[in-house]
């Protein structure tokens, strides 16, 4: 490793050369940070696409839901598909509703509770898909600079060892080692900065989407409780 700094005095200092001259630890750090960066951007692209799709789907479903179409019909068309988001919540609630009435449920309060719970479970599952992998963005955003710093410290240690070895403090001896060490911090920052920005943006977006789902669930729960009251009242009156 001592040779690295010495050799650098004469060798070129392009990015590739710097990387190749770096010690094994620094090299590993750099590679890891490159991987983190790739992963960050993969998540960013994925989230961007999926959040856009979810928002569009929410809009579509709300349009259909409030169009005055019969909920039974809507359920029948949606039940056969793979549902996500609002439609998934709707389908879960409707399924519970159907099951309860087919078996002749007596208690309107019990039915209401069961429907709410079914919707909550579905909502939790859906939110999980929205917020999934945002945690890794946060981790990369906070840890990448430190990892890069670690690489830098190791690299500078190496270049100081090179100084000790060459018994010369000539800038030409020291500079390449330090440049190579600083490259690790640079890559760490390159990975961390987009990760932090993306994490903030996507967690806010996920929050918005879950709030929308919650709002829909509450509204639908209200509609269903009115329906339950209307359907159970005549029965109780008849008895």
């Amino acid at each position: 490793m001592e040779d690295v700094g010495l050799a650098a005095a004469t060798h070129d200092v392009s990015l590739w050369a710097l990387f190749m001259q770096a010690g094994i630890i620094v090299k590993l750090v750099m590679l890891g940070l490159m991987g983190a960066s790739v992963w960050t951007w993969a998540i960013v692209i994925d989230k961007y696409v999926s959040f856009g799709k979810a928002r569009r789907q929410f809009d579509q479903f709300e349009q259909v839901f409030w169009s005055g179409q019969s909920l039974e019909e809507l359920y029948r068309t949606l039940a056969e598909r793979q549902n996500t988001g609002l439609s998934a919540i709707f389908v879960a609630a409707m399924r519970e509703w159907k099951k309860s009435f087919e078996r002749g449920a007596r208690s309107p309060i019990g039915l209401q509770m069961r429907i709410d719970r079914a919707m909550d479970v579905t909502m939790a599952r859906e939110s999980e898909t929205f917020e999934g992998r945002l945690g890794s963005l946060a981790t990369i955003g906070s840890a990448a600079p430190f990892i890069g710093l670690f690489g830098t410290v190791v690299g500078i240690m190496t270049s100081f060892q090179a100084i000790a070895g060459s018994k010369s403090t000539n800038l030409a001896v020291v500079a390449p080692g330090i440049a190579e060490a600083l490259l690790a911090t640079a890559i760490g920052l390159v990975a961390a900065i987009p990760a932090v920005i993306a994490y903030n943006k996507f967690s806010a977006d996920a929050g918005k989407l879950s709030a929308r789902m919650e709002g829909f669930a509450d509204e639908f729960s209200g509609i269903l409780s009115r329906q339950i009251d209307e359907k159970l009242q005549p029965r109780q009156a008849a008895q």
Partner: protein
Amino acid sequence: MKGSLGTSLVLHTVALGFALVSLGTPASFDVADVEALPVDIIPVESITQIQQGDKKAPLAETAAPVPTTKPNIVQDAENAGDNEVDLKAPPTPVQRPIETEVAAAPEKTDNPLPNPTTETNTIKEIVPEETAPKPTEVAALPETKPEIAPEPTPEPTPEPAPEAAVAEELPLPDTIPVPAARPRPEPPKEQAKPAEKPAEKKPETPKAAEKPSDKKVADKKQETAKSTSSKDSDFNADEIAALLNKQEASGGGAKRSTETAALGGKKTTSGSSLSQSEMDALRGQIQNNWSIIAGIEGADGVIITVSMKLDETGAIIGRPEVTATGGSDTARRTLEGSALRAVMRSAPFKNLPVEKYDAWSEVVVNFDPSEML
């Protein structure tokens, strides 16, 4: 997710590839060859210290004042010049008085030639005033007057007066070319002598009988009168200034120099600060006269600062200022008092070099009494 991961990878490779291509080897810093500047460290004394010389003369190895002509009279003179007394004032130019002398002299000689009329006027003025015989007689007269006033006075006065009048009248018509200066001295002498003779002869008996001293006084006065009368011809009111100016111009020092003038200051100034040994000598002189009372409470850490103004003999001008810092109040006051007494007792300070007076005209000395116990 796979799709986005792939996209991310592709983007990264593109970005890296671009970075590797565009951010290749950075241009190396080419340091232009700059000639090294030699740096000398010059002591500031060479600038602040000036050697005696001439401000207008060219620079030379050693500074020297303008060469003087007279032999050295005054020992250890400081200021260069031809003077007999070492004066600090710069020499006044010698040419001016010469000019006035020249200007004063021709006035007389010139005047008589072209203007006989003015001559006569001047003569008239001179004769009555200075025809010394009169004053001498008059001088003698007042003494004698009360005693033998009637006898001598009428005789001498009429005699010279007509003569003088004749003398005055004569030159007027005489001739123009005759220089006025020559005749003037002669006739008054002649006039004076006859005037004296009758004055002496006639009162001889009474004067001799009365007062011999009067004669002597009169004689002396006559002599002075003669001498003044002999000079009277030269005398002119304007001439006084010329006479005064005849004296050598004052100013300039008494230090002689034989070398050719070279660039330098008015006087040699040595280093502007006292050397350590000189400072120690001054300090020691004060310390010797300082009786510090041992065992003053709170005297630890008292620092006494004495600042005084000295004149060139080393005597203290005014009252030295003594300030003390640190320690207790009483200790400070006691030590301040003793320091002041010590300073006053040790004055005048004789060991200080006179040429460095600028440096010790105001001296500040610090003392740590705890070191002196």
